[in-house]
């Protein structure tokens, strides 16, 4: 097990290096520091001096890959590639274009992100499993058919409409909770309810339908038929035999997204003005702050790979037939 994990992590390294090189290429070769400076300064104030100053302030005035001016190992370390890309591996994200410490910002903004993402995941999971079980229990009847139709309908609505509709109905018309915003400590609770509710609802369609097909797949297997044939109660069959086995794909599906929860939700956070990592990324894209975008892309790929490793481990935990080798 341990050896396996070590090997997977070792496999992950070349992927991370590839992601890093690609990001470097896109951010510094396709979109050179001069371009970034021009975008930042605006059309009116672009002069060669202003561009040079902007680049010097942010450390973009060095050569890309190889520095001929200095000597020794500094030839490789005094370059943009080393300072901006290689340092990402040490989780040293440097400073954003307006001079803030990115690592500090990320740690700070992770909390609100998690405060929304975790309850949304749990509430959504609970609703989806219940709904899917209900459909599987009444499979083939009108309850099942109308449930599936409802799922397809729910799935066809854009997440933005759920958010706008929810804000309008619950926030503005019924005045049950504040439309958007965030607060520290326990006061944050009243700001969290609406995003969590909407986030869970917008996932019902796709989630329940998928879980239903997991349940039906198990329900058609031989051991379930045997269980029914020996006279077990249908609900007992469903909970003991079907649910337990269908949990394998459900759990692994959840585990793969677990690390991504840290990144928060782009849409929910920016609509509800929550200072999490999702809105951080969107703001950075809008402000063309490439240092932050670079950091977030790197963090995203690290978390993605962690997710893949976690899934493999989860398989061995929930499914005794699977052994890692």
């Amino acid at each position, binding site marked *: 097990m341990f050896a396996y994990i070590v090997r997977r992590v070792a496999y992950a390294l070349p992927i991370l290096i590839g992601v890093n090189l690609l990001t470097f290429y896109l951010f510094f070769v396709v979109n050179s520091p001069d371009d970034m400076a021009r975008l930042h300064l605006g059309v009116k104030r672009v002069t060669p001096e202003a561009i040079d100053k902007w680049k010097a302030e942010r450390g973009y005035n060095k050569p890309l890959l190889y520095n001929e001016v200095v000597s020794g190992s500094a030839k490789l370390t005094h370059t943009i590639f080393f300072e901006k890309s290689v340092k990402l591996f040490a989780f040293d994200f440097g400073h954003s274009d307006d001079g803030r410490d990115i690592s500090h910002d990320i740690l700070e903004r992770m909390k609100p992100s998690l405060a929304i993402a975790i309850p949304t995941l749990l509430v959504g999971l609970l609703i989806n499993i219940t709904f899917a079980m209900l459909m599987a229990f009444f499979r083939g009847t009108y309850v099942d058919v109308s449930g599936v139709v409802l799922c397809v309908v729910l799935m066809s609505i*854009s997440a933005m409409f759920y958010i706008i509709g929810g804000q309008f109905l619950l926030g503005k018309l019924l005045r049950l909770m504040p439309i958007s915003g965030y607060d520290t400590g326990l006061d944050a609770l009243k700001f969290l309810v609406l995003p969590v509710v909407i986030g869970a609802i917008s996932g019902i369609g796709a989630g329940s339908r998928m879980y239903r097909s997991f349940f039906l797949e198990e329900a058609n297997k031989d051991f379930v038929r045997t269980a029914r044939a020996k006279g077990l109660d249908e609900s007992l069959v469903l909970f003991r035999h079907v649910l337990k086995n269908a949990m394998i794909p459900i759990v692994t599906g959840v585990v793969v997204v677990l690390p991504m929860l840290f990144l928060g939700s782009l849409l929910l956070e920016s609509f509800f003005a929550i200072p999490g990592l999702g809105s951080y990324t969107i703001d950075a894209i809008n402000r063309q702050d490439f240092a932050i975008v670079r950091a977030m892309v790197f963090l995203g790929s690290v978390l993605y790979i962690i997710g893949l490793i976690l899934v493999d481990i989860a398989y061995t935990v929930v499914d005794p037939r699977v052994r890692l080798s």
Partner: protein
Amino acid sequence: MIMPVILWTDALVFLLVAVVLTFALYARSKPHLRAPWRHVLGSRMASASIVILLAYVVIGLLDSLHYRAPLENNGASDEVHYGVEVLSVLDYLLEPLHTRTEKTYSAPFATHLYTRETIQHPDGSQTREYPRLTWGGRHLADPEADFRSDILVRVATACLQALLLSGLLLLLLGFWLARRTQYTPGHAIRSILAGRTRTPLRVILLTLGLLLLLFCLALNLSTAYHVFGTDKVGQDVFYQTLKSIRTGLVIGTLTTLVMLPFAILMGILAGYARGWIDDLIQYIYYVANHPEKFETALERADIRLLFLCIILGITSWTGLCRLLRGESLKLRESEYIKAAVALGVSHAKVITRHILPNVMHIVLITVVLDFSGLVLAEAVLSYVGVGVDPTMNSWGNMINSARLEMAREPVVWWSLLSAFLFMFTLVLAANLFSDAVRDAFDPRLHQR
């Protein structure tokens, strides 16, 4: 004379249409491909959604025939000059909607503007009131009194027209069926109405009738009113939604077209060749699997729509690639492929003759399933600011601009509503259609 203009996306759209038509003709001649499609057409949900999808496609195609109109010749020379604006056939058909702009917001079917204005009366006094719209309900002498009856008359005319057209359609369909099946026309029409035909013609006819009704309603009402109101600069929202259809379709289809060759080639190659090729391709798709970076780096692209498709394609091919790799891995161990290899068939031929046809159902299912997701993704991307150009008509842009107006009192809801209705119908139809396609083509589902 007009000057035809072919945009990049137009060319690709027509290429796609050609590909689909070729495939359809090919599938007609092969019984093993005809059977699942007949299964799709046999489902009532699927045939209704196909009709709706086709209606969208027709609008999208009309909007893809672009041209530049000649400017008025002032007689000075024989040379013809063309306007800068690139118009489409849809623009020509919707000209009244396109050109009749108001000052600012107005509600659906409104005859007066949304905001109050100071109006100077002839006697010198000033009042603040809602001014009449320039175009909406212009033909009404007294809006308060005539509005109701005018709408009633128009709706009634539309219903009548739609009924007549549907009747005509039923007759045509009956005669067509009669010619194919040696029934009498009367018998054919009765069996359509009773729902006894193999293809659910009754459902298709009902859907068509509904579409015709909507079409006639739009024809009668939108020429006199702004059916979905007007936006901030007074543009007709109904026109904007219709124009957005093309954007949505282009994103949903071209993205797949762009990524398909990549995914198929790499996926099959990885699964078939195994070894280091497999490792390399797996490595590539793990690296490529991070959407954000492409979007920001290419954000300033000029032909943003096309680029958006390419970017979404680059980031979404990995899923299909992985599926194809797995399937090819499985197929290469099957006996008929081992037999082909043993008989000395070249690898290229094994791939094109034996593997490719056997993974096509996965490709088809993925393409259809991805479509609705891509249409939805466009809206989100436009909101984030990395979507299509802000000046382009798209549902994402409509939602994005309408979102800010929800705080107004009274609420400006019509842009949101029309974007919602059109998008929802398209995505719902696509989802129902893809379900039917999956049921018909996925061999695993048949075994049960």
